[in-house]
């Protein structure tokens, strides 16, 4: 119970097959009180997840909100404080992907991806950091970026751009928040079989799924639990001196052009 008396917020955690849910379970199992977030339209799923966390013996509440709206982000942070009196850990994980090649990018896609993947993360980090600074006891922020932070794919140019933006953002934030003992790091998931990836055009047939596996040196997709383990490290006392770091968790996908 290394996280006893700690309070963690995890955004983008409604789906039972999401990295956010994996993180929420990991942190709850280590004793943290959990606030889980997703968009208001997924309130019912959030309720189910809260029920599951509480059944594990965790203390959890939900805070549905649209992270592209500053007022709703503030309300979410307020909800954390109302429920548990403090906020120690923020896993800014909510994000979305669209598969559109550069020449097919639609303005609506561009706006939506920037809104949630960039603006949403920034608003969450800002509101959370203000709360942590006010309390004066430091804090931990972990952003979920992507293996696409450094590795590029032809049909996800906007997604890749928003994730690379997070790399620069996390670095800047780490510098600015270091004097307050708040660390900021990000994880780069490779291929994880989440609900978000269900509509990936590269994962629609057994043959293409097999090809994806063979392109990964460890020859399989990652699990949400494995992503959560990296988050658990970044928020641990063992990682207290790590800030501004990027950790890919991709089975070696981004090492090279080819797997062996």
């Amino acid at each position: 119970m290394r996280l006893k008396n700690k309070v963690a917020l995890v955004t983008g955690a409604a789906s039972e097959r999401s990295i956010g849910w994996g993180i929420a379970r990991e942190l709850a199992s280590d004793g943290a009180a959990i606030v889980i977030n997703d968009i208001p339209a997924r309130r019912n799923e959030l309720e189910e997840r809260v029920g599951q966390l509480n059944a594990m013996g965790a203390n959890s509440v939900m805070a549905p909100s649209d992270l592209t709206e500053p007022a709703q982000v503030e309300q979410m942070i307020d909800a954390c404080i109302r429920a548990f009196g403090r906020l120690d850990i923020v896993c800014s994980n909510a994000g979305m992907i669209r598969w559109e090649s550069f020449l097919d990018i639609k303005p609506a896609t561009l706006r939506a991806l920037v809104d949630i993947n960039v603006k949403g993360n920034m608003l969450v980090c800002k509101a959370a950091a203000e709360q942590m600074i006010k309390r004066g006891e430091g804090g931990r922020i972990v952003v979920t970026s992507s293996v696409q932070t450094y590795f590029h794919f032809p049909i996800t140019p906007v997604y890749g751009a928003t994730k690379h933006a997070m790399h620069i953002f996390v670095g800047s934030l780490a510098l600015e928040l270091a004097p307050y003992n708040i660390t900021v790091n990000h994880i780069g998931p490779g291929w994880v079989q989440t609900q978000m990836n269900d509509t990936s055009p590269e994962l629609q047939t057994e043959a293409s799924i097999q090809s994806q596996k063979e392109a990964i040196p460890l020859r399989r997709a990652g699990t949400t639990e494995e992503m959560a383990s990296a988050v658990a490290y970044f928020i641990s006392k063992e990682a207290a001196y790590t800030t501004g770091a990027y950790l890919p968790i991709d089975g070696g996908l981004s090492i090279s052009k080819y797997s062996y």
Partner: protein
Amino acid sequence: MFDLSDQTVLMIGELSDLAAGVAAVFKEAGAEILVVYNSTSDPNLLRLYPDGTYLETSLYDPIELASTLANYTFQTVVISPGWFQHRSFLDSNASDIENAYRINFEHAIYSAQSAAKRLIEQGEGGVILFLSSVVSKMPTVETNLVGSSLASLEVIATMAAVDLAQYGIRVNVVAAGWLENSWAEPLLGVEGRMKEPTDIPLGKVGSTKSVGQACCFLASPMAEYITGVVLPVDGGFTLTKSLAQSPYRGTRQ
């Protein structure tokens, strides 16, 4: 595009078909070519080089190297590391490690150091370019030693860029992708391998000329504010992932 007729280009290091191709592009741009090559290089490679002045020396010996260079004036220096070997990590031995680092790292540093001192003596700044490979950025199968030795060299190059800026000397690296040259022979020479390089976004393997053109750009006044960069010339090879099997499946014994 480039008029480098006011330049003498010192090509220093190991003889190679890549360096010869680069020298040819400089020659086409009007530069005089001065080649100072290691005495252990294969002299047969000299036939690939354009007309110029050729001097054999020992790159092991910075003093001999300095006395050789003292007799010449040049504006651009191209450092040519020449060690390339496909060998799996498990098969690489101490001798491979020593060779990789002696040739691609130590010799290249001595060469750059001696040339930089001569440029400083000349007092008019200059340009130092390191020939490298994208395997320093993206490891590929069985390039562990060439990749790591060139990666080390690239760090030295960027540090040298900082140190030498005060003398008006710019230092940059040109990192080649797959080329139709001897380094790629294990790939290109085997039936079915890299015959159709669809894994290269621009759809073809590069040429030594394409690397030479990048070198000419970085040596030209067009690049007068560029220092400490590693410029890949790889047709986009290192940008993305391939679902194909590696065209080089290894030599593991």
